[in-house]
């Protein structure tokens, strides 16, 4: 039976048709992938199904019945639940409070906290979600926050679940867990619509897949009858290569040198514990490691976003330890931050303004104390075109862009400044395969120009593919160095888990 039928859905935003006569049919009990480039209109389509947006045209049938989803509460009644691309959680509330919000169990007008916590625990056990009902959202990991989002939908009795890019923010371990959970859900009779850019995930868990490109439906396929290459080319509209071509290079002078660095995390505990690291001109050094081993703190310390406790950071021989972020930037460091919303963009500024966040007060963007808007616009136009940032125009606020296009805007800005050291933290998180290919080529280009690149990624694949040397980080220290041309994934994996390496190739 078809549980979801969306027919001829069209949705226009100022300057753009986000959904253009889209068709989507989802069968009961299946995991149905929605695949498409950044800005193709996936989130928009799902927000329509969930009642957050109203379509301009088209009709929706749920379990055969024609419906008007007027709002999220209506969607709830129809059994539709959604886990959003950007989480919808109230930070100071507890897990349970977030889950029951809007449909609280009560006794005599008072919230029945015990009953709620019991129910949350029950559902969480039943689907293997492992959450602590009493924990506060701001104290728990991203992975657990996501499980809370899933619980929110289950608590409301949803049987059609929309997952909007749930794996983009997860570590590989957490992704495995999520995939297991999805299996449990389907076994209990739920239907899942799953948005992801990772073709492997689609091949692994999905039954069918609908591909959309620039707001239009391209096709719906059975996953069994297709493969990754075919999906990629259908989605992008051309052949995509998954391999990166990279020539052997001799690295030059040391650009970044870190000695005995110690950094505390936000709670005051040591996250980086006496770390040494060197990155030379013309090489990409990859940092591999399980999330939470000090990667974030390390990068924040280098870029001046976090104070160090001790140790030295040098750039081209110059001490930059604990300089202000602006001074670090000026001395030749580019940073593609992990959290683009918090660190990468001013969401309410236009794309054009976001492109000059570090350079707005320097010529040619400023003359004396006046901004030169014509220069700023020209610069932005060029970057948007070159990096294929899909936006109606450069005056659009960054907030209105799709997640992947926001990321592309940040990358464009940082790479274009042509810094001596480019720090890229999860640079392709949330990007489609076409965009990933492009970004990878750009990083290698920087290296070939003789720049130093420090790449942090939770995806082992990416680190192995791009890096010239890999530093495996474990509990705040470099546990060992690996040569990606000879190393096997298992070896890196062992180091990441704290094992000792046999072949240390520290050069």
């Amino acid at each position: 039976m078809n549980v979801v039928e969306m027919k001829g859905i069209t949705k226009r935003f100022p300057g753009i048709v986000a959904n253009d006569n889209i068709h989507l049919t989802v069968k009961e009990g299946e995991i149905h992938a929605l695949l498409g480039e950044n800005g193709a209109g996936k989130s928009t389509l799902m927000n329509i199904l969930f009642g957050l947006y109203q379509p301009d045209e088209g009709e929706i049938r749920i379990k055969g019945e024609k419906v008007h989803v007027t709002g999220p509460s209506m969607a709830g009644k129809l059994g539709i639940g959604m886990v959003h691309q950007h989480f919808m959680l109230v930070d100071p509330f507890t897990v349970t409070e977030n889950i029951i919000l809007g449909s609280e169990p009560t006794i005599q007008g008072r919230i029945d906290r015990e009953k709620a916590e019991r129910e949350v625990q029950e559902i969480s056990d039943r689907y293997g979600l492992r959450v602590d009902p009493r924990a506060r959202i701001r104290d728990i990991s991203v992975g657990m926050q996501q499980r809370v989002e899933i619980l929110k939908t289950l608590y409301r009795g949803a049987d059609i679940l929309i997952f909007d890019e749930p794996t983009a923010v997860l570590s590989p371990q957490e992704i495995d867990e999520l995939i297991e959970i999805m299996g449990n859900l389907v076994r209990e009779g739920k239907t899942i619509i799953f948005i992801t850019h990772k073709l492997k995930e689609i091949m692994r868990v999905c039954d069918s897949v609908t591909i959309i490109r620039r707001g239009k439906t391209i096709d719906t396929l059975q996953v069994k009858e297709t493969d990754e290459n075919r999906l990629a080319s259908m989605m992008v509209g051309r052949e995509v290569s998954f391999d990166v071509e990279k020539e052997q290079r001799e690295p030059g002078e040391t650009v970044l040198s870190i000695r005995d660095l110690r950094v505390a995390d936000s709670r005051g505990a040591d996250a980086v514990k006496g770390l040494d690291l060197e990155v030379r001109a013309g090489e990409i050094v990859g940092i591999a490691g399980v999330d939470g081993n000090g990667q974030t703190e390390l990068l924040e310390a280098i870029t001046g976003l976090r104070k160090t406790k001790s140790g030295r950071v040098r750039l081209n021989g110059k001490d930059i330890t604990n300089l202000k972020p602006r001074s670090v930037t000026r001395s030749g460091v580019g940073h593609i931050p992990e959290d683009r919303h918090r660190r990468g963009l001013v969401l309410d500024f236009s794309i054009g303004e976001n492109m000059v966040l570090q350079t707005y007060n320097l010529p040619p963007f400023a003359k004396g104390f006046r901004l030169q808007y014509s220069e700023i616009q020209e610069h932005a136009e060029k970057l948007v075109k070159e990096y294929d940032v899909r936006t109606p125009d450069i005056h659009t606020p960054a907030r209105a862009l799709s997640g992947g296009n926001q990321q592309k805007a940040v990358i464009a800005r940082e790479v274009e400044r042509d810094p001596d050291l480019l720090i890229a933290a999860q640079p392709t998180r949330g990007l489609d395969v076409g965009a990933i290919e492009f970004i990878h080529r750009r990083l290698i280009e920087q290296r070939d120009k003789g720049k130093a690149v420090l790449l942090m990624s939770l995806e082992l694949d990416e680190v192995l593919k791009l890096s010239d040397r890999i530093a495996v980080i474990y509990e705040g220290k470099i546990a060992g160095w690996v040569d990606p041309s000879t190393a096997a994934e298992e070896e890196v994996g062992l180091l990441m888990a704290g094992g000792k390496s046999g072949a240390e190739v520290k050069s």
Partner: protein
Amino acid sequence: MLDVLTNVLQTTVLYATPLILTAIGGLYSERSGVVNIGLEGLMTIGAFTAAVVTLATHSPWVGLLAAVAAGVLMALPHAIASVTFRADQVVSGVAINFLALGVSVYLVKAMYDGAAQTPSVPETLKRLPIPGLDQIPVIGPALFNAFPTTYLAVIVVFLSYYILYKTPFGMRLRAVGEHPRAAETMGVNVFRMRYVAVLISGALASAGGAGLSIAIGSEFNETTVAGHGFISLAALIFGKWHPFGAFGAATFFGFAVSLALIGQIFGLTAYVPSEVLNMLPYILTILALAGFVGRAEAPAAIGKPYETGGR
């Protein structure tokens, strides 16, 4: 010496009462995400209405009720402007302050032959001793022989704590002030919650204002409120947007306001000019409003207009 202590307590309680009511009023509004600079104006309209209606009906209770109704009415434009039309909440609040003061002073002039103040209200609220308790030495006469508004204020504090932290309504209200879109995806009507919150703040702030004209004082003029609304707002911030915190901070501000009086009792004015003592609550207020305290604890979505379907 014990007499002095009783006296200090009594004046503190007296001056703290309107501040407590108003700060709790502000709490509802700000917890739902709507800044309420308009507390001053809401107090003004309350003080004015209470005086005028009590004069006309000879019942301070009717005066108090009328003040509450007037406060709700006065808060309505603030809700419409800042929730429905997504105007700047500070600007809208400031407008409420001007509007309330202008309307009340004008009406006083119109009603009482161009006088600058209302006639003296003979039938003000009277101190209400609680039999037995008021006999406790030292604190009895101070705490248990207070104006009915004081008891009301204390009840409002505890009730508000219960409502905000124990009931679905309160949880939704706080959620709307933290992350309105999350609340909306859970089926909460953001607009309705914010309207209700702003109107409640009007009712309570107005009741606080009434205390100034028919309990502490017995008339209304242009200077009756004299910044008490802003002081309440400061108490709310000092109190970290929590009912008990606001209660404590408002009581402290009440103490600061009564310092001038208390200063005379202690003979403090021999060392510090009374003008300086009078300034104290306002200086504390400026410090609070300028953001030296408490900003980190503010509701996350405060001051941000909400739009359905936006990003």
